[in-house]
């Protein structure tokens, strides 16, 4: 078991900077998820931890030991690839035992480990099959099995679920969470899917353009995103953003005007001046069709998406801002209706002109 720490890491491919100034600590036994849009450098960061890419600057420690110069096999890591990367010419058994051959594990012990992993992953009946004779879900389990048998301190997963269909994805997600509980190993998991990140992680690392935007527990990121990017990335449907303007500043609160409404929010106004532009963020699920809350936005409904348990109401305000509201499933709303969405100022987020959150309880 081991922790992973990264200091001042940078990576460039030729003249292109892919990762910049990455500082991160993954505690022993933690389940950390790297999440971010496609191409932001998640896989590159994971491959650097695995030792498959070199770094341009910075240091990586696994279990307190500097590993920059160590080959992947000596880092006590195991990796599960998005494509599974099973050896097509080897049986399931041989795929799982392949790594043990190089670790000089003795035959009997290797056999015991492979069979035990197969037991856990329900692969015992498939040990003699070739990968091409397996379904996608089974291949996925073989790939995980191949990682387990090596008894690594750190598991690395690179988008392991993205090639599975929706139902299987949910199942496998739960299996991986269980596996983490059973093994207690450190796991680092890369995904672009924020639902996977929210459900699996004990800690989420949000990456964008090769930089860490925010690190925190899933609910922390949901409740207290430190900037517009994180606020928009975490949560589905996306948070609504509306341009606003500072109208007044008092001791503990700031008055903000936006989309024809005005609200008073508890913010420190010390870096603000009257007339500054800000961005107000409100999550669709924090707005309601009716409510005692003071603030309301009115607009015309463009479309309604009915999911059963909820309906997403897409409306356009008089200020031309688009707003999504999560309404109850059976709400009687139709396109073309006038719609009024109520919300509490306490559930809003306010960001300054650079996109940084102005809430006092937010730590980056």
């Amino acid at each position, binding site marked *: 078991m081991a922790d992973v720490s990264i200091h001042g890491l940078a990576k460039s491919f030729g003249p292109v900077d892919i990762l910049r100034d990455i500082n991160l600590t993954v505690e022993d036994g933690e389940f950390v998820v790297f999440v971010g849009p496609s191409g932001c450098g998640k896989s590159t960061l994971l*491959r650097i931890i*695995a*030792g*498959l890419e070199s770094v341009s600057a910075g240091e990586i420690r696994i279990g307190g030991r500097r590993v920059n110069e160590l*080959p*992947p*096999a000596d880092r006590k*890591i*195991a*990796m599960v*690839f*998005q*494509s599974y*990367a*099973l*050896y*097509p*010419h080897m049986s399931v058994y041989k795929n799982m035992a*392949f*790594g043990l051959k*190089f*670790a000089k594990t003795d035959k009997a012990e290797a056999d015991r480990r492979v069979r035990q992993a197969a037991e856990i992953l329900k692969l015992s009946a498939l040990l003699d099959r070739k990968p*091409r004779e397996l379904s996608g879900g089974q291949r996925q389990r073989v790939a995980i099995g*191949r990682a387990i048998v*090596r008894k690594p301190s750190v598991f690395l997963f690179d988008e392991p679920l993205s090639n599975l269909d929706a139902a299987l994805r949910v199942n496998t997600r739960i299996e991986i969470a269980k596996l983490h509980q059973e093994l207690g190993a450190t796991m680092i998991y890369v995904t672009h899917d924020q639902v996977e990140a929210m459900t699996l992680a004990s800690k989420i690392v949000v990456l964008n353009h090769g930089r860490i935007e925010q690190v925190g527990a899933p609910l922390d990121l949901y409740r207290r995103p430190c900037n517009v990017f994180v606020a928009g990335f975490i949560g589905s449907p996306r948070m609504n953003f509306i341009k606003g303007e500072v109208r007044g500043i008092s001791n503990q609160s700031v008055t903000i005007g936006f989309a024809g409404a005005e609200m008073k929010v508890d913010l420190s106004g010390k870096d603000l001046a009257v007339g500054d532009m800000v961005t107000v963020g409100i999550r669709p699920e924090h707005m309601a069709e009716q409510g005692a809350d003071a603030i309301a936005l009115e607009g015309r409904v463009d479309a309604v998406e009915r999911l059963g348990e909820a309906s997403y109401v897409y409306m356009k305000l008089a200020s031309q801002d688009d707003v999504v509201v999560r309404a109850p499933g059976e709400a009687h709303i139709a396109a073309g209706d006038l719609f009024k969405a109520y919300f509490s100022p306490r559930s809003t987020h306010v960001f300054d002109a650079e996109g940084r959150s102005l809430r006092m309880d937010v730590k980056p």
Partner: protein
Amino acid sequence: MSTTSFETTAPLVAAPARSRLPLHIVVFLAPALLIYSIFSIYPLVDTIRLSFYAGDQTGAQHFAGLDNFRMLLSDPTWSGQFWNALRNNLFFFGVHMVVQNGIGLGLAMLLSLPRLTGGSVYRTLIFLPTMLSVVIIGFVWQLMLNPLWGIAPSLLKAVGLGSFFGPWLGQESTALITISLISVWQFVGIPMMLIYAALINIPDDLLDAATVDGAGPFSVFWFVRLPLILPTLGVVSILTFVANFNAFDLIYAVKGALAGPNFSTDILGTFFYRTFFGYQLQVGSPTMGATVATAMLIVILIGVLIYLFGIQRRLQRHTF
């Protein structure tokens, strides 16, 4: 009883289906079939037919059964040359398998290195000789290796290896291997390209997974890449085999049809040429020529059959 009745009814069922063979398919197939029959199938069949005939001084031919083959394999005037040519041809093939395909594999591995710069330049340069005429290749190498005015002796002397030089193309002991290596030099680009294509087809993830599993570069090659390119190596081998046993041009260009010195570079192709067309004092014999051609066909057929039924079945193509 019941089986025979099925057999008799089967054609009745099949007949209407066959008669409904659409006319346009016949029309589209006809030109290719016609050309292929006239220029390929008919000559082949007629060659085999001719190999069962013998001719006399008047030019009249008469059926001789397997006499020609018996003569080819056991009559001292024929069999010595035939076995010599076959032996040389096997050696020629062996050199190509080991040297040409070995180097081709090595070059393909080098080309597939991710950090290689200028890969396409090397690829083109190495493949270039393949596109040159064999006559030019033969001529150029003959000039270079010439002991009197060739560049090889002075080059060797310049690096202090002058004493190693010999008239390689002129000595009985070295002529065949020298010619084989010239041919290897010309055609090494072909196995290289085929194997290179197979290598880059292997996903990087697979090699990364093996690296994470602890395999070093040699193990990655031996346990992952090699097994995955075996089908291609099989194809390369059979292509080499067929090309080598049909070879003729390089030896004819460098050494003439007598494949000297003292037939030491004689292979089946040159042997066939002398037999069929005649050369210097030897009178050509169409029927014996057809016999040699048929023997070559049989040799190649045996090789291809061994490959198809003995080797290819065990090689599995992998999709990634």
